[in-house]
Each structure stands twice: as structure tokens, then as C-alpha cells.
């Protein structure tokens, strides 16, 4: 009987295919929007989580200048020196401190060239960032101390200069310096902010200072805290040391800042979730509107089919059976809408994931929820019209024109 009723419902829906489609459009849009929002939201928070992991735990960035500012907005606070990094590395709360000086340069190999970010640092930098060398080797201590003309390259630079061949042992030119590629870094992917982190060259900091930028500035220091040290305590001790080294009088403000990267990324995740939640609730409203659309059309359908209902009652249908017929029709209708919406939403999310370079992360739970929810929309908004159909008087219904 149920199978029969479902078949009947599908027949009735197909009989008015265009109208049925327009009827369920609201549900389609609602479900598609929810699915797309949740899937994209989950993809981007997955990515944030991944980049938090790539930053390592307890990672801090020390920069000259007061607040955290964008590039080019620093005030006139003096840069750090290599000695600052060494002193910080001596603190018990610090596991590793890596000086960073950087410059955007064109790297040349044969006919190929690539403009890339050249970072001067040391092996502590890779340690802080959890960034292993996958081919070749890292810098030796003598190389770091003497500022030898050696470098490590990221996968994107390798692709541009060397294609798929082995770059180690080759020599690239950075400005006027010929520099031996000693190692290849592991693929890291895009950062939280969408930068390609593999488009980079890393050289010993002294080599960059002496032979490229021609000064002894260190623009920032990356710090990893020792295990078991809280971020608050680490920041307090680092600030105390730096105030002393930079001779800042009591009562004066710091002319440097310490940024906790994990905090920023978790804040980003939070913003992400709030946005996804807001958009989803807008989508939920459109589901509600879709449900009302279904109710409206089912009421029209009941009126149009009054005579049919009369015939069914005359041949022995009970009220419950008429109710079920129209209720199932509404549910089938909104389930079809839900299914189309799920497929549409996933497709949208997939395309968006492509464009935004984030993982495509469909959630089975949310898909199931959308399915159940669209069935529920059918039941809730189909009930009233179905009850109206079931309550018809057979004599009146048969007389209906």
C-alpha cells in the first residue's frame, strides 16, 4: 500500500513536472545553500587547522614596532640583530629562536627565472616551522656561521627553475650571488592567508645580510617555546629580555611586539564558523519559505483534485488513506527538492573549493541532516493540505466541478 502510494505520488508529481519543479525550487535553494555553506566552511576551517599544525605549537613571532602591522606599515623602531636571536635562544622558556631577514629577489637558473621571497635564517627556522628537508641536506653550522653561498628551495621554485629534475648540487643566481642548492623543502601548501609557502628560497642569514641586503638587520625572530611553557609566560619572559636589550625605560611602551600565530588562526577559525553559521541560518529561512511554497501548491493541488478525492472516497478510501496520499506526495516532492539541493550544494562547494584552494570537505552528517530536514519540511507543510483533502465530504467532492 505504501509502495503504491509512493508510486502514485511520483506519478502525480511528474504529471505536473514544471510546476513541481518550481514548487520545490525553494527547498532546492535552501538545501543547496546550507550544504554549500557548511561544506565550504568546513573546508576552510580544516585548512586553518592544518596551517595551525604547520606552524607548530607554541610558535611566536617577534617583530619591531608596536602593534601587529601589515608589511610596509612598520614605524621607525630599529630592527633586531643576530645577537638578539642568540640571547633569546638562551632563555630557558625558548626551545629555538630563528632570526629572519628577507628580500624579494629574482632567482635565475639557466634561462629560467622566478621572482621569489628569499629568507635569510638558520636551521632553527625550519625547526620552529616543522619544515623538513626532503632531498639533499640542511645548512651546516660552519655554513651558517660564515654565511656561505648555499640555499634551500621550496617546491614551487623548483618547479619553475628545474621542472621535475633534482635541483641539489645545482647553482642558482640570486642578485649577483651564485648560490648552491643544497636541499629541497617539503611541500607546505598555501598559508592561512592564501600565500604559496613553497614559493621560497632559504639561505643562511649572514649570507643574505652581507651579500644581498648589505646590512645586519634582522626583521623578525621566530620563536618556539619549550614544551610545557605556557604562551603567556613565554611572552612575558621574552618581552622582559627584549625591553632590557633595547633599553626601554620603565613606563615606556615596547617598541616591538610578540604575536602568537596560533591565536590568530584560531580567531580566523572562529570568524569562519560565525560566518558559516550566519549564512546557514539565512539558508534555513529559505528552507522555511520553500516549505510554505510546497504547502501553497499542495493546497492548490487538493482543490484541483477535489473530484479525484471524491472518487477515491466513493470507491472505499478511508480518510487516513487520502491523508497519507497527499502527505506522501508532499514528502516525496520535498525529498526530490532536497536531493537536487544536496547535489547542487555539493557541486557549488566543489567549485568554490577549487577556486579558493581549500579542501573539499563534504560532511555525511550534514548531508543526512539536510535529507531528513527536507523530509520534515514535507511532513510539516504537507500535513495541513493533506488533512484538508482527507476531511472532504465525498458527496460534495463528487459534485465539485
Amino acid at each position: 500500500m505504501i509502495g503504491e502510494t509512493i508510486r502514485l505520488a511520483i506519478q502525480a508529481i511528474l504529471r505536473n513536472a514544471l510546476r513541481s519543479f518550481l514548487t520545490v525550487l525553494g527547498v532546492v535553494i535552501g538545501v543547496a545553500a546550507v550544504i554549500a555553506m557548511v561544506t565550504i566552511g568546513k573546508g576552510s576551517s580544516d585548512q586553518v587547522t592544518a596551517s595551525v599544525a604547520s606552524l607548530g605549537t607554541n610558535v611566536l613571532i617577534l617583530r619591531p614596532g608596536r602593534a601587529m602591522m601589515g608589511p610596509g606599515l612598520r614605524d621607525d623602531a630599529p630592527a633586531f640583530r643576530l645577537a638578539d636571536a642568540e640571547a633569546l635562544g638562551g632563555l630557558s622558556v625558548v626551545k629555538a629562536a630563528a632570526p629572519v631577514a628577507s628580500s624579494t629577489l629574482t632567482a635565475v637558473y639557466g634561462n629560467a627565472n622566478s621572482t621569489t621571497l628569499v629568507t635569510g635564517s638558520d636551521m632553527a627556522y625550519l625547526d620552529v616551522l616543522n619544515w623538513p628537508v626532503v632531498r639533499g641536506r640542511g645548512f651546516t653550522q660552519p655554513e651558517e656561521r660564515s654565511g656561505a653561498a648555499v640555499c634551500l628551495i621550496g617546491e614551487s621554485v623548483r618547479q619553475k627553475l628545474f621542472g621535475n629534475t633534482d635541483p641539489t648540487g645545482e647553482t642558482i643566481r640570486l642578485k649577483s650571488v651564485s648560490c648552491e642548492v643544497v636541499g629541497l623543502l617539503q611541500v607546505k601548501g598555501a598559508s592561512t592567508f592564501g600565500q604559496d609557502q613553497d614559493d621560497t628560497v632559504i639561505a643562511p642569514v649572514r649570507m643574505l645580510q652581507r651579500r644581498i641586503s648589505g646590512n645586519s638587520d634582522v626583521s623578525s625572530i621566530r620563536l618556539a617555546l619549550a614544551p610545557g611553557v605556557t604562551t603567556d609566560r613565554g611572552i612575558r619572559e621574552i618581552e622582559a629580555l627584549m625591553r632590557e636589550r633595547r633599553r626601554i625605560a620603565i613606563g615606556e611602551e615596547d617598541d616591538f611586539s610578540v604575536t602568537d600565530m596560533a591565536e590568530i588562526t584560531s580567531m580566523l577559525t572562529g570568524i569562519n564558523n560565525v560566518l558559516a553559521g550566519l549564512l546557514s541560518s539565512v539558508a534555513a529561512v529559505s528552507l522555511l519559505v520553500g516549505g510554505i511554497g510546497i504547502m501553497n501548491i499542495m493546497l492548490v493541488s487538493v482543490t484541483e483534485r477535489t473530484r479525484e478525492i471524491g472518487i477515491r472516497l466513493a470507491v472505499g478510501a478511508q480518510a487516513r488513506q487520502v491523508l497519507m496520499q497527499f502527505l506522501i506526495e508532499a514528502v516525496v516532492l520535498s525529498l526530490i527538492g532536497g536531493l537536487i539541493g544536496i547535489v547542487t550544494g555539493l557541486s557549488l562547494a566543489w567549485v568554490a573549493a577549487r577556486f579558493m584552494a581549500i579542501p573539499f570537505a563534504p560532511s555525511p552528517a550534514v548531508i543526512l541532516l539536510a535529507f531528513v530536514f527536507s523530509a520534515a519540511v514535507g511532513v510539516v507543510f504537507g500535513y495541513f493540505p493533506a488533512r484538508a483533502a482527507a476531511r472532504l465530504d465525498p458527496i460534495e467532492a463528487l459534485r465539485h466541478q
Partner: protein
Amino acid sequence: MDDRPARAPIIELRGIRRLYGAGEAEVRALDGVDLAIRQGEFVAIMGASGSGKSTAMNIIGCLDSPTSGTYRFEGRDVSGLTRDQRALIRRHCLGFVFQGFNLLPRTTALENVELPLIYKGMGRAERAARAAGALAKVGLRGREHHDPSELSGGQQQRVAIARALASDPAVILADEPTGNLDTRRSHEIMDLLARLNREDGITIVMVTHEEDMAAYAGRLVTFIDGRVASDRAMPAREAAT
């Protein structure tokens, strides 16, 4: 001709009243109707509009309940049954034929005939076989997959009769079955009903305006002002050609 044993009435109305409205606006559609119809009878009901014949048919057909009085169907008092209980009687014991055919549009003849069988909970294959059999019986073999819109009025009424027959009812209630048909088709439909009555022993109660059609019945009941005004046996009709 009547070589069958005397039978108890299958339909028995006693003091049936059906009132609509209340107070000043009260209308007595039926005002004390007594009528007994035995199994195998073919009864024609005539009367002017508003005489109560349609109301009586609705009550006999268990589509409506009397305000007072007793209606026994197959000996069982059905006057106080609920809507759903009456639906069960219609489903299992009654077949309806209407003036306007009342077939489902955009639904094949076979599916139309299957409709009451669906509610009987019959399986698909059995249903199709039964429906095809009923269509063959009314002379529509080969038209199973036609839509009502592809059939003539006479053929549509045959489909409706097949639908009434399909569930194997004890009684067929026909409300002006020839009202929408020309004379020739009307006589064909009446021959068909008379044959079902004669050969299958199905009790037929028919409302009609036309003396010609009433002549097919074995008994004529006339309603005036909500009462039975006359009730007489009809002269045996010459065998239809």
C-alpha cells in the same frame, strides 16, 4: 421466472429522515422513507428535482448518514456508522456509476478500474487481471491502455461500470447513468446493466429521469417531497435485441 428462494432484503430503510440546516432554514430532504430492496432486484428510482431521490441514493450508498431512522444493509444496522466504517462498506459491498462518469483523468482505463482494488489491498498482478476481466465484461477488451479522453462517452461509462464491477459488489448504485449519453448509447448502457443484473445477480439501484431507461428495471419507486409516493413492479420487458 423467479426460481430463486425468497430472500431477505439486502437494503432496508425504515423511517429514514435526513434534515439539513436548523430552525427556520430546516430542509427535510427525506421525511420518513421506508424501502426494502431484495438481493437481485433491479430498482429504478424516479422523482422531480428536490424530491429526495439523490439524498436517498447517498444514504443507500453509505456516502451519507440519516438524521434518524434505521438503515440495514445485509441485515446489519449501518445508520450510525462512522465515516471510515461506511468507507469499508463502500469498498467491499458497493459499486458506483455516476452521470458524469467520474473517471480519473490522464489515467488509463485499466488503472481506473484497478482503483477500488488498490484500496482492497490486492496485489498488483491480481489487480491487473481482475481489472482486465471487468473491462472485457463490459466490452472494452483492447482498450485497457486508453485514457478517458481517448474514449467516447459510452465507452467511458463502460469503464465506470467496469470499475464498479471490479470489486465484486453485491449492489451497484447508478445515479443517472445515461444522463450524459445519446439515446443509442443509453440503451447500450442499460442493456449492459440489465445483463449484469440478470446474469450475475447483482442488485442494481438506479436513479433516472427517463421512463425509457426505467423500463429496464423490474421495479419503479417514485419519490415526491422526501417520501416514497409509489412503488410498483414493472411489466417484464421484452428481451432486448
